């Protein structure tokens, strides 16, 4: 499956990873090579085969509704690149 530069820039935008224009060509070739190799999966007959997302064979564990956590905003903000008055701070977002 060919992966053109537009696709790469669409994907990089979805992933929020900036790619310089002069890199798009190179990266599209790299991704194309990997995806080409992955395309061998299309040979496999999978009709009627259920998709598997996890292998635990367990039941989803359930938690009791109790407050057992939180109450340490200083710990939460400890590593923040920018904070003020107990808030994380980011450039202004315009809705």
């Amino acid at each position, binding site marked *: 499956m060919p992966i053109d530069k537009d696709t790469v820039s669409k994907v990089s935008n979805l992933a929020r*990873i900036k790619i310089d224009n002069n890199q798009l060509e190179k990266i599209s070739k790299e991704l194309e090579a990997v995806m080409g190799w992955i395309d061998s999966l299309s040979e496999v007959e999978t009709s009627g085969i259920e998709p598997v997302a996890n292998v635990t064979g367990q039941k989803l564990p359930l938690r009791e509704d109790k407050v057992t956590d939180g109450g340490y905003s200083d710990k939460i903000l400890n590593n*923040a690149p920018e904070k003020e008055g107990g808030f994380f701070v980011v450039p202004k977002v315009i809705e």
Partner: protein
Amino acid sequence: MSEIVSKTILQIKEGLKKRDYSALEVTDAFISASESNKKLNFYNTFTKEKAIEMAKTSQSRIDSGEDKILDGIPIAIKDLFCTEGTLTTASSKILGNFIPNYESTVTQNLWDAGAIMLGKVGCDEFAMGSSNETSFFGEVINPWSKVINKNLSPGGSSGGSAAVVSAGAALAATGTDTGGSIRQPAAFCGVTGIKPTYGRCSRWGIIAFASSLDQAGPITKTVNDSALMLNVMSGFDPKDSTSANKNTPDFLKACGNFNLKNLKVGIPKEYQISGMSSEIINLWETGHGWLKDRGADIIEVSLPHTKYALPTYYVIAPAEASSNLARYDGVKYGYRNSQNHLDDLYANTRADGFGNEVKRRILIGTYVLSAGYYDAYYRKAQRVRNLIIQDFNKVFKDVDVILTPTTPSAAFEVGSQQDPISMYMNDVFTVPASLAGLPAMSVPSGLSTNGLPLGLQIIGKQFDEENVLKVASNIEDQAKFPFLN
């Protein structure tokens, strides 16, 4: 004193008990070994002071007769396990300044058992890589490099963990394995490593790569030591919804039984890949022979979807990773590239903060989940994953364990593998067991023609680490592997 570093955990435990040396002396010996191997670049963060402090606490417990199972045992921690108050970076620039205020369950289990932390060893960035070369802090060097006088990769992603044990600079190390990241570096560095059944060790506090595959495990010199470490690392954790609510058997008891009568060992014919070197094929055959000598039945089996395991893995793991790594956005912690607009902040932070391989996988993962491609790639891979699981289920009706080589080759030179796909091929034998969540172990079993370590892999049934360990200790016993230290 220097002979301390060539001992195993069990031997050191014995020595501590007999007061041949103190926990502090043991720790000092490993600290010196680490310091004298600086050029191998084991550590992202070396926690010497902390180790000395922990050693003193251990010794006081030993003195009062209240010693715990790993008291006095210095170990290294892969820099993917969050450690309270100690830098935890995943070998990435984006977490280059991150100090967690919490401790991963697995490391907490180890400290609770008395183990001593030497530091945080390097790995591939976010565990994505098979050579350690994707680390932002530079690759760890394989201690076996001195055999051929060239810088060899320790493998990856747990390359630092395998290298530090191999060099006799730690008695054990924690690793994580998503597609072979414990087993391949263990094989490259001539040490033992086990990836237990998915769910055996809690994932809580381990920086996630691919959640449905990630599993912690120990890297040690010997099979016994791996079993002992695994005893401590395992256990149900209510904080991890995928943690197995099962009792941990005493894995040590499974080791050292040299009678394999009635044990059936499967040899999967699909693992004879084209281009595999004769030394690997010979080693594998030698392996059958050893097990046969101990009374095991050797049976040829078929895992027909083996060749699709790698492409399946390279859809599923990047897909999960693309989502797991979305949290590294420069807002809450870690590196930030400051910008006037939030979307620019994200895009620049992540462009600068992640290395090329991580970015490549995030892009692949984003692509295979995106509208129009989900069914063709992600959903398809999930179905093939099911077929791979079914292959194993079928084979495990007839055999108890499966024996394969761990890797298709011995350690390669740093910088020698530039192409991503040939790099991915390193995990060709380890990935299938990962996709099926099965326990699998690499044991150092011999040397290549130029004197580098080679490993054999034993794959077991779900939650049957015991047979894996049993077979591994038989191979170990017969291989008489010449450890570096």
